[in-house]
Each structure stands twice: as C-alpha cells, then as structure tokens.
C-alpha cells in the first residue's frame, strides 16, 4: 500500500486516537494493580538463615541422632515459630543433616525404628525406607533420597540452613 493511497478518514483518525488514549489511561490504571497482585509470584525467594540446633560438633557420632529446633516462619504480616527436626551424623569429617520428611508423601521417618530393618530410616505410613546417607531403598515407595540440610559449624556448634533436594 503506497503512502498516497492510504487516506485516513476523520472517523478513523478519531477512532485511533481515542482508542490509543483510552488504552493508555486503562494501562496506567491497571498496571500498578496487576503488579501488586503478581507480587507474591514475582518475589525472589530469600535464602534462609542458618539456625543453631543446640548441639556441638564433638557430640556427633557416626550414628544418626535426632535434633529438634525452632525456625521463625515469616508469612507476610504473620510471624510464627515452626518446630523442625533433622537426623544428623558425622561421616569422617563431614557432617550430614537429613530432613526427616519422607519423599513419598511427607510423613516423618525415624532412624532404626523398625526391628525388621535395622540401620534404615523407616517411614511408618507406607513402609518407605532409606539408607543411613538418605538414599531411598529400591522396592519401597519413596522415589528420591531424603532432602539434605546446608550445614555450618560456628564456634564448635552446628548450624543448619535450608533443605535441598538431591
């Protein structure tokens, strides 16, 4: 279409202008509202702090022991304390802290709790089992290993961070 042929009628010009201005105003009105509604989805998830679990590095052995600790959960304007646990042991020099949440359906696993399966983490819900290092045992319901905590040692005390999938 050549430039000359493209005659814009008065009606067309007004339609374009009004639609443009109207659209601009609507966008100016709606964009802050939509951005506000999208905020939870766009917010970057902050890495959690390390929390002392009240156990010294030298108290750890090769045998997993259960530690309970409280985590502060900030849920928008509501802050609450949530109790969390970890199975923690020493493998040589390395400290391993495993989440007790079964990777099958979220029940809580226990170390060495079933006499038929010594040296396993056992989940009472559907009989899911894990090795000492958290690896899921084939033939039981879980499909991936137990989540593992970030571990830090400060002044001889053990601190745990967030859990990571393996």
């Amino acid at each position, binding site marked *: 279409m050549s430039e000359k042929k493209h005659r814009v009628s008065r009606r067309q010009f007004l339609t374009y202008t009004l639609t443009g201005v109207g659209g601009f105003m609507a966008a100016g*009105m*709606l964009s*802050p*509202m939509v*951005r*506000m*509604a999208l*905020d939870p989805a*766009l917010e970057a998830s902050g890495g959690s702090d390390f929390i002392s679990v009240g156990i010294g590095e030298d108290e750890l052995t090769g045998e997993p022991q259960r530690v309970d600790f409280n985590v502060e959960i900030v849920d*928008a*304007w*509501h802050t609450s304390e949530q109790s969390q646990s970890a199975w923690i042991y020493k493998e040589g020099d390395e400290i391993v802290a495993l989440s007790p949440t079964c990777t099958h359906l979220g029940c809580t696993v226990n170390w060495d709790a079933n006499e038929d399966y010594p040296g396993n983490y056992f989940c009472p819900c559907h009989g899911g089992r894990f090795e000492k290092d958290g690896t899921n045992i084939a033939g039981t319901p879980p499909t991936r290993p137990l989540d593992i905590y970030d571990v830090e040692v400060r002044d001889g005390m053990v601190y745990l961070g967030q859990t990571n999938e393996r």
Partner: protein
Amino acid sequence: MLQKVYDWVDERLDITPLWRDIADHEVPEHVNPAHHFSAFVYCFGGLTFFVVVIQILSGMFLTMYYVPDIINAYESVYYLQNDVTHGMIVRGMHHWGASLVIVMMFLHTLRVFFTGSYKKPRELNWVVGVLLFFVLLGLGFTGYLLPWDMKAYFATVVGLEIAESAPVIGGFAKTLLAGGEIIGAQTLTRFFAIHVFFLPGALLGLLGAHFFMIRKQGISGPL
C-alpha cells in the same frame, strides 16, 4: 484480525444493535466542550463514574491483602503499603480516589442544580442521585475504619456517637452499626461487609437506574 473476530461473532449473535443502542448516541451541541468550552461542566457526572470505577478496581485488588480482623487489619495494611510492590500506589489510588469521588459528585450536583436539570420530567433521577450521594458517603464512612489505626478508630467512635445522638432510635442505630456495645471486632467485620458487599451492590443498582433514566429522558436542554 480483530475485525474478523468481531464479524464472526456479529454474524451469529447480531451484537451491533446492542452496543449501538448503548454507545452510539448524539451529544447535543450545548453539552459538547468542542463547541462551547464552558460545557466541560457536563463532564463531572462521567468523571464521578470514572473515579468510582477506579475505586471498585483498586478496592478489589486491596482485598487480596487486607484482613478485616482487629489483630491483623493494621498489620496487613502496613504490609501491603510497605512490602508489596506498588501496594502503596494502589492503596493511594483508593485513598485519594475516595475524596475525589466526593468532590466530583459535589461538582456534578452543582451543575445539575444550576442548569435546572432536576426539573420535570427528571425529578426521579435527582432522587436517585441523592440516594447515590448517601451511598457514597456511607462507603467513605465505613472504609475509613478499615485500616484500624488510631485515626480510623476514633473517627468511627465520633461517627457512631453522632448516630447515637439521633432522637428515639439513636441508641439502637449505634448498637446496630457497631455490632454490639463495644466498638471492636464486630464493628470492623460489619463495616468491612457493608463497605465491600452491601453498599457497592446498592451503588451499582442505583447507577444502573441513574444511567437508564438519562438514556430514556435524554440530556436536559440548553439554558
């Protein structure tokens, strides 16, 4: 593309007469600012409606974060104001818009009054307009309490005492509005329900009647 979608729908549902009937009507010369600039006074009604639309939209988005509860109301408003991106803007729109609605409505009322547009046959539309005025004042009054800060609380205490001073029904009216003897938990939920459901419902109904009567009777003639 858009034209094709429109044509496809129009061919089947014949929607053109529908919107033509609503949107396509002549604006008389004496209310068109392009002819007489002073005719801008005829825009105040439309502007009131425009701000009302902003209030409804911004209010809908604010309820995503607001909780009408005496423990959490202030905290949730603080959170949406300071921690949510653009929350300050949206709350600002609702806050300032509330005053702007009243200002625009007042100017619109002045225009209707001084052009004599309330006279026969438009008396009923004036009555509906006055009802709209009360509904918007009610929205302002109930919305003022919702942030649940000192200003909100004591403004409502004063407002309810004014209601109480009414003869005969005063005490009853105050208890009914406050949802009990204490201005507290039940007052807040009550005001929230009135602000978000009851009055907006009434507002939309009355606006429908207001606009229907304008289209039925046409715009009043020149001075």
